[in-house]
């Protein structure tokens, strides 16, 4: 084990680079929140159209680099430390790290050309696709077959392949026949985004199942029928539930109906969480002293809250009120911080480890993050509910006045965000101090 946890281990370097992207996410998130609370803040120096993509892309790069590092590390661990194509993690790392960093620099200089979430010039699609293609090749070379494999291998495979497909699809606006029909273009854009998030969730959730098995010391769940049933439900949603993003777009009615129906299958997951809450709690009591487990448990709680909100948002009549409000932002924050980041930190702590004298910092950091996140999440939801109310009942109110009315909630959002950043700093730095 020690042999592949050296300083030159690129799977670990992937995770540490991911943590740097997380710090960048927090920094630009703070600047973005300040723009909400102090209108015009940095307007002439560092405007919101730069800050938002820096924040959002940093978050995406944190998710992607840490997810890749985790999958590559655990694939090797699964094979007792042997990794075919041993140079590939290094090659993939350099391609993606240089590309991701260049994208952030291009934003600082105000060079855009893409679209929401991928605002960079589409030329960067080439190295991203090459890097991701090599990741898929390395994964398939090491795993060879899906036969007799646990569910997380299926999830990693699905996530890796679908990410590349949907990422390329998100660039289809380059074709004139797509971009010259706004409604069709936006339909395909959100089709690809919905599946893209589903794809990286397959990578992350697959890794969390691997880690849970590791903590439990058996792989019974990963080979069980229920694990595969939930996996196929996840793939089904990845492929078809994205229609809930475009209820207000004048696209085909069947897109919306399919999105609505498929999204409602998530009630199965929701019901399962409620059904299993008692046994989940006793597992939590047994394992809560294990740091990676703490983060897995926090993610479970956030899955419950985020899924409840997601199901409500997927009902078109309710979506009508929530769409275009900060409720959507709250949902995204719950999913990316509460679920994805908590899971990725669990992997980071399992893989990198920490020094015992940092235990208290991690403890305080963990609780600070999660308690602030609850306040952060609620403040966004309340701001969203108020915006929906104003939109429907006071149509004459100007947008500026409406945003001013929401100011107290933005202040709460900023304050809780600052507390969350402090919590993250306490949690992230022990990972850099550890020499693994």
């Amino acid at each position, binding site marked *: 084990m020690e042999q592949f946890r050296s300083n030159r281990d690129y799977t670990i370097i992937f995770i540490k680079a991911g943590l740097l992207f997380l710090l960048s996410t927090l920094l630009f998130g703070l600047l973005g929140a300040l723009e909400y609370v102090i209108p015009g803040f940095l307007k002439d120096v560092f405007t919101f159209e730069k800050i938002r993509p820096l924040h959002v892309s940093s978050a995406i790069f944190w998710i992607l680099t840490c997810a890749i590092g985790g999958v590559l590390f655990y694939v090797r661990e699964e094979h007792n430390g042997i990794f075919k194509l041993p140079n590939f993690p290094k090659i993939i790392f350099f391609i993606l790290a240089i590309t991701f960093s260049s994208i952030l620099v291009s934003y600082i200089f105000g060079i855009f050309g893409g679209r929401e979430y991928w605002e960079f010039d589409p030329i960067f699609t080439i190295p991203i696709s090459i890097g991701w293609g090599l990741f898929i090749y390395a994964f398939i070379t090491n795993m060879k077959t899906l036969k*007799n494999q646990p569910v997380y291998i299926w999830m990693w495979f699905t996530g890796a392949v679908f990410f590349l497909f949907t990422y390329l699809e998100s660039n289809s606006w380059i074709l004139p026949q797509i*971009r010259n*029909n706004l409604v069709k273009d936006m339909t395909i854009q*959100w089709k690809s985004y919905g599946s893209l998030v589903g794809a990286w969730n397959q990578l992350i959730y697959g890794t969390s199942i691997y880690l849970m098995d590791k903590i439990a010391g058996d792989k019974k769940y990963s080979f069980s*029928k229920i694990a595969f049933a939930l996996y196929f439900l996840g793939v089904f949603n990845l492929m*078809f539930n994205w229609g809930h993003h475009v209820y207000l777009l004048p696209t085909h009615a069947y897109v919306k109906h399919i999105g609505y129906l498929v999204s409602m299958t998530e009630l199965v997951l929701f019901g399962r969480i409620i059904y299993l809450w008692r046994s989940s709690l006793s597992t939590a009591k047994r394992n809560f002293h294990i740091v990676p487990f703490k983060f897995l448990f926090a993610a479970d709680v956030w899955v419950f809250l985020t899924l409840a909100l997601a199901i409500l948002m997927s009902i078109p009549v309710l979506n009508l009120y929530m769409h275009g409000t900060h409720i959507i932002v709250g949902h995204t924050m719950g999913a990316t911080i509460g679920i994805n980041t908590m899971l990725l930190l669990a992997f980071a702590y399992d893989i990198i480890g920490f020094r015992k004298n940092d235990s208290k910092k991690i403890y305080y950091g963990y609780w600070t993050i999660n308690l602030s996140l609850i306040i952060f999440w609620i403040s966004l939801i309340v701001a969203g509910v108020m915006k929906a109310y104003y939109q429907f009942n006071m149509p004459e109110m100007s947008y*500026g006045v409406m945003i001013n009315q929401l100011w107290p909630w933005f202040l709460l959002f900023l304050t809780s965000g600052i507390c969350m950043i402090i919590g993250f700093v306490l949690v992230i730095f022990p990972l850099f101090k550890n020499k693994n």
Partner: protein
Amino acid sequence: MGTYRSKIVILILLIISFVTYSILLYESDSKQSAPPNKLAQKGRVLWQEKNCTACHQLYGLGGHLGPDLTNVYERRSEDYIKSILHTGTVVMPDFKLNEQEIEEFVEFFKYINSTGNADPKSYKKHLDGTISQ
């Protein structure tokens, strides 16, 4: 669900359904009035280059710092749009656009407006939870 073959069959069926659905979407045309003219196409490029979506939405999709601009052409006058583009606002910076670029933006807003109505109040609500315009 138990055997490898049944798992592969399910996965293949899902992939076939997904590909079929995707082809259907790519092949069929969503309702739209006229395609954008050259000026509107240039306005669209500007929209992306200035990253307007960081703050503004189209059909409720985008940033939340500024208002949804899907039907701004219909709700406001051309002069109003031009003056905002010329000077910016308390929150929005002055992008130092020239007259030609401002015309392109206005034409782009005119085109977006022609694609539909993004006002949530214009939707009818049905008992089964669906909505229609």
